């Protein structure tokens, strides 16, 4: 099995005493110390404000995965609404919005592969979105 590490470093001087956090985790299959062995890396360009099914549950064969999504835009007006749920036939009411991924932002989270991950671009300009899935 492969060895894959994810490291997060947070640095903030918002508070008077600055915050510095650094943690590394090894990406393992659910509840084990066995490393994940599958990786998908995709870049897409979206050109409308329609909701898009970005990562479907059918694309992963496990019940535990790690997801990285990046908005590489440098235009602060370009963001993606990130939602999770069953988008089924253009029914966004079935999804829960996680948050908005603004220009330059990334997100990282474990995914239980129960529901699809969907995105809605803020503009109809060409907007690039990048994602990786480890499972």
């Amino acid at each position, binding site marked *: 099995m*492969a*060895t*894959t*590490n*994810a*490291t*997060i*470093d*947070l*640095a*903030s*001087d*918002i*508070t008077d005493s600055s*915050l510095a*956090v650094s*943690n590394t*985790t*090894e990406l*393992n299959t*659910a*509840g*084990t*110390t066995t*490393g994940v*062995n*599958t*990786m998908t890396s995709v870049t897409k360009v979206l050109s409308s404000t329609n909701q898009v099914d970005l990562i479907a549950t059918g694309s992963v064969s496990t019940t*535990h*995965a*790690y997801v*990285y999504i*990046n908005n590489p835009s440098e235009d*602060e*007006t370009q*963001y993606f*609404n*990130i939602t*999770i*749920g069953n988008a089924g036939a253009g029914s966004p009411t079935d999804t*829960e*919005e*996680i*948050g*908005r*991924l*603004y220009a*330059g*932002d*990334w*997100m*990282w*989270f*474990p*995914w*239980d592969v*129960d*529901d699809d991950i969907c995105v809605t671009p803020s503009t109809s300009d060409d907007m690039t979105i990048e994602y*990786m899935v*480890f499972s």
Partner: protein
Amino acid sequence: MATTATLTLASTDIAGDPVNVSKVATLTKAGSTNDLDQSTGLNRVHLRSTSNKVLLAANAEGDNLAAKVYIINKSDDASLYVTVTINAQTIGKLYGGDFLFIPWSQTDTDADIEVAATNWTSSTGDIPVEYALFHEDTDFLTNA
């Protein structure tokens, strides 16, 4: 007042060639280049409940504003996990050592971020969880 978040993904053997991804984000207010200027700081709780507990309470005033959430399961036991949900929608399971870093839209007051020590028992011991929220808006208060 700047806050940066850096993610590094590295593997020498998950693909034919080494994987090394590093991305830095400077956390800004919604739709602007101004830095986020508020934070809960780093918090630590010990979970000992299999039912959902509110970690961060949503405030509808936070809708359409920028907020970032960091949560880590500090357990050393790889089998102990914390289930993370938003408005009863499961996002995923943080196993021992795992973390998440996500944007958080509070579309309504039901969009609380909740956690549960789903496979906790009295013999497993508590699951330590650390978290932090970075956000904007003076009226955006949380239970942290």
